[in-house]
């Protein structure tokens, strides 16, 4: 009622609407938003972790007899991952009578990668050339068929080394990933993760300057 009376009072004169400020107090809103942003920023997993695939050979069942595959000694390269980021390698087959000295190297770009690259240069160059051709447009194939084409290149290769990867018991998981990673960097077509044998364990211990603990009988 009171309002109507007031309006009546102003009748006749110029109508003057009450001026409201357009600014709203936004502080609570900003507070809330700050909180929400912080929450979402902390809980968001930005980049998804990547995965590296490995395939291990099927285990031989106890009462199954399988002939070990015959591979040429000249193409075999043994890599033993040791403790403290050390890598040892030697070519051929372990022979307790005539021990080949282990070569020590590391995981740097000039370490084991050069050793592998030296043996795998032909295939590495082929893959690199192939990828270059695809990028420059000389070869017109799709991205997903590129992968299978490279796989085919690797399959056809018969010059590269056959790498046997072994782990000394003090090796770390980091190096396990590193060495398999190294295989994909250099493009090794054939590699396998196998168990270390007692001769090689002794060789590593000798290289580390430790008294040899392993013998054929100690092996389980």
């Amino acid at each position, binding site marked *: 009622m009171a309002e109507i009376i007031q309006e009546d009072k102003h009748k006749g004169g110029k109508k003057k609407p009450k001026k409201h400020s357009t600014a709203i107090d936004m502080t609570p809103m900003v507070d809330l*938003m700050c909180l929400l942003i912080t929450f979402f920023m902390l809980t968001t997993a930005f980049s998804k972790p*990547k995965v590296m695939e490995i395939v291990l050979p099927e285990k031989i069942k106890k009462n199954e007899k399988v002939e070990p595959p015959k591979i040429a000694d000249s193409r075999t390269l043994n890599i033993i991952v040791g403790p403290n980021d050390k890598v040892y390698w030697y070519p051929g087959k372990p022979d307790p009578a005539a021990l080949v000295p282990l070569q020590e190297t590391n995981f740097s770009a000039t370490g084991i990668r050069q050793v592998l690259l030296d043996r795998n240069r032909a295939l590495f160059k082929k893959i690199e050339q192939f990828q270059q051709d695809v990028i420059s447009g000389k070869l017109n194939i799709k991205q997903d068929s590129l992968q299978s084409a490279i796989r085919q290149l690797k399959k056809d290769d018969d010059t590269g080394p056959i790498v046997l990867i072994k782990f000394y018991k003090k090796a*770390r998981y*980091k190096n396990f990933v590193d060495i398999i990673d190294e295989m994909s960097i250099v493009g090794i077509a054939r590699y396998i993760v196998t168990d270390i044998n007692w001769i090689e364990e002794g060789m590593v211990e000798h290289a580390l300057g430790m008294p040899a603990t392993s013998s054929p009988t100690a092996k389980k």
Partner: protein
Amino acid sequence: MPKIKIPHKSPHVDMTPMVDLFSLLLTFFMLTATMRPAEPAKVDVPFSVSEKKTPDANIMTVTIASDNRVFFNVDNGPDTILHFRPKILEEMGKRYNIVFTPEELRYFEKNSAPFGVNIKDFKAYLAAKDSKERDRFQKGIPIDSTDNQMALWVLFSRQVNPTVSALIKGDGSVEYPLVKKVLDILQDKNVNRFSLITSLEKVEVVDAKDAKK
């Protein structure tokens, strides 16, 4: 001397641009958010050059923490209608003569965090009120040959969901024998293809022969 009049300024600041920016950021984060699952232990994964992304669904993850505890997790995507997780837990319970109530199964389905709990403690683990209490049970899944619960988890996961693929998330400092043990357990259950979770690293190959030229 006349007094100098200090101009009276309003303490109010115009917050509109700030609000604009904030709402933009908020929308962005809300839309891109994929919740990071709670990790029971910190794991520093090693680096590799692989650019393959982790699959979203049908995965079982074996986590190896730096203190040699082993965790396990099955995940078949957030919007599954097949209810794999409770089925796996039910099978596990049957083997150890533990009956899980429907509530416990539902709770296990909803909270898909990696667990490192002995199956005998599982009821208490599921009943735990907060994460602190839950962490007390996270002693790692037994993997010795006398009580190899990890092998059973893998077995039942594969029975319930045959398409499941194995992921291994290991800390870089874990020693190889433990990794080998985990790989052996998986291989015993006929899993020969593994994906190792790594973070991306750029590597350049410098051929010593080329460099000399």
